[in-house]
């Protein structure tokens, strides 16, 4: 990464910076609330259940991308999106026909998701190759497998999973899939792992020399991403009631955009899953608003790009640590 020679004299408002460093998702939160209000004003019938179900895959994709990014060294896991589709395909085309379509599928698929993530992590730490290169390769591989196993969409009928696209009792089903990764991430705070993960992301050489098993921490981060992606696979299946290889790369761009918008440092060591959720909400609500005011959908791609740029530039400008001369 480029490091310009630091020039002195730019010590502007360190307190604002410190505040934003601690609550890095603050900007996204304000934006999300504003967009929510705008949505509620423009759409007389804002169907929470449906909206949440549509939102879920994006939100979970963003959350799934977060742990590996926090683990540092450019830890983008590009496989999250095709992995979500892969899990969906496994469920619809393999487990259901094999009679494993019940709740028993949940632990199986979560384990597979985590294992896929862990494989990425193992390759990254084992080969000592930039994560981006590894996950780009496995991204191709996953998309290839998705296409190969499901050349045409397979429909799923009458399965419990569609409850997560509708409602479970009075509660929107998507809330479960969205809140599950958040809950897992929160619970993880009870063990030292999460703190160590942040320290590894901040400076891995320090962590290594202090006796941290850096490789295990990294692999754990990718496994966690894979686990979340599996939950995202449920959310996709619930939403479209089918498995479609066409969704394999749908969430790659927006998930990373959401993470950046949510204030997670793309250099690692800062940020969190909650920020990514809020970042995803911003993107989703903006998209929904554009639909509501009937703007051509081809603009969406441009909007994603522009939002991603604004998010990363804004985030970098605000939360960048004070430049050290040495």
């Amino acid at each position, binding site marked *: 990464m480029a490091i310009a020679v630091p020039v002195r004299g730019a010590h502007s408002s360190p307190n604002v910076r410190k505040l934003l460093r601690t609550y890095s998702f603050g900007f996204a939160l304000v934006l999300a609330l504003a967009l929510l209000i705008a949505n509620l004003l423009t759409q007389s019938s804002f169907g929470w259940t449906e909206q949440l179900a549509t939102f879920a895959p994006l939100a979970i994709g963003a959350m799934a991308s977060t742990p590996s990014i926090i683990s540092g060294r450019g830890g983008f896991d590009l496989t999250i999106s095709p992995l979500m589709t892969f899990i969906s395909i496994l469920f619809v085309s393999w487990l259901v026909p094999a009679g494993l379509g019940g709740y028993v599928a949940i632990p199986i698929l979560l384990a597979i998701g985590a294992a896929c993530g862990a494989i990425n992590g193992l390759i990254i730490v084992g080969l000592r190759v930039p994560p981006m290169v590894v996950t780009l390769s496995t991204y191709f591989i996953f998309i290839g*497998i998705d296409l190969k196993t499901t050349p045409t969409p397979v429909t799923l009928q009458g399965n419990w999973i569609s409850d997560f696209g509708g409602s479970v009792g009075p509660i929107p089903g998507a809330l479960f899939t969205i809140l599950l990764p958040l809950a897992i991430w929160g619970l993880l705070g009870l063990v030292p792992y999460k703190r160590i993960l942040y320290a590894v992301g901040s400076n891995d050489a320090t962590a290594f020399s202090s006796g941290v098993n850096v490789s295990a921490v990294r692999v754990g981060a990718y496994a966690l991403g894979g686990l979340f992606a599996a939950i995202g696979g449920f959310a996709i299946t619930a939403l479209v009631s089918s498995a479609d290889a066409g969704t394999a790369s749908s969430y790659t761009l927006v998930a990373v955009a959401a993470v950046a918008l949510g204030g997670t440092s793309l250099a690692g060591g800062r940020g969190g899953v909650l920020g990514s959720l809020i970042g995803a909400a911003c993107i989703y609500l903006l998209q929904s608003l554009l639909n509501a005011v009937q703007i051509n959908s081809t603009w969406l791609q441009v909007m994603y790009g522009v939002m991603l*740029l604004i998010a990363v530039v804004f985030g970098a400008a605000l939360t960048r640590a004070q430049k050290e001369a040495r």
Partner: protein
Amino acid sequence: MSTVQQAAKPPVASTRAPGGALQTALGLQRRYPIMQAVALVAVFVYGAATLDGLASASSIRSILVLASLAGLAACGQTMLILMGGFDMSVSGFIVGGALVVTSLTGKYNISFGVALVGAIVAAGLMGAMAGQICHRFEIQPLIVTLATGAIAVGVVQVQTGGTLAGSSPAWLSRLTSPAAKTFGVGVPPLVVLWVVVTIAMSVFLHRTVGGRRLMATGANSRAAEFSLVRTRRVWTLAFAFSAVVAVLVGVLLAGFAGSVDATLGNPYLFQSVAAVIVGGTVFGGPGDYARTVLGALFLTTLTTVLIGHGASAADQQILYGAIILIAVAVYGRDRALRDRV
């Protein structure tokens, strides 16, 4: 970072390899792309032995044309990876360039030349912006070019309204046809173009001030800045170059493919990255374009052979992923954590 440089700093790669012969071989491999050349020959020989007609002149011509397109698409990528950057926007700018010269010429009734110049200027500006943003805010190029690529293809798509009317000029199709001849010689013009570009890239990277500054920026951006290299300018120009090259490749592709759709560029993103990495250029260097050329030839030959054996598009994707992994496993290694303490 250490201020005290022990003489005992280990070299970057494979310090564990035992034996003098293996060390020498690895040293040679680091210096020259021997393994890549051997792999290329091996795949070709295997293909020629198992597939009828692979070794025929016409099939070699078409392999060369396909490799030229992949290699040209990887021009910018090579430069950016050497500089420590990365370009995800290749596919976006390829589609953008192709659409501009096919659809927009008809829509706005402008000449091919005007459309081309417009596309080049726009791409150059967007690339320069990406480079500026990456450098100024220290953001991973992956993210920024993901965004600029999406914007590029999105804007063009909005213009064309998603309908893909129009076609490329006939002369462009002739230029890119494998059957075409260059001044009566049986070599496709596109291949000749590629050879010229290869020479130009090699001279630029190794024999010019600009090339050396680009390499220095990749090797140590901070030290380059201290050594009076204006690294932001290097980043800006390199990203602008990459975007412009992608647009030009898009134009060539429009001629080659005849019709254009929004997924036209996708394979070339994969191929550009794969060609550079398989060729053996490492992030931040060392490496050069000649390696990318070998990488592009190898990948194209392999793809041709596989298709000959009945592989599908999905198989190709899986294979590409696997090959990149194998390639980086062999020589794309970072320093071990223990060497960074």
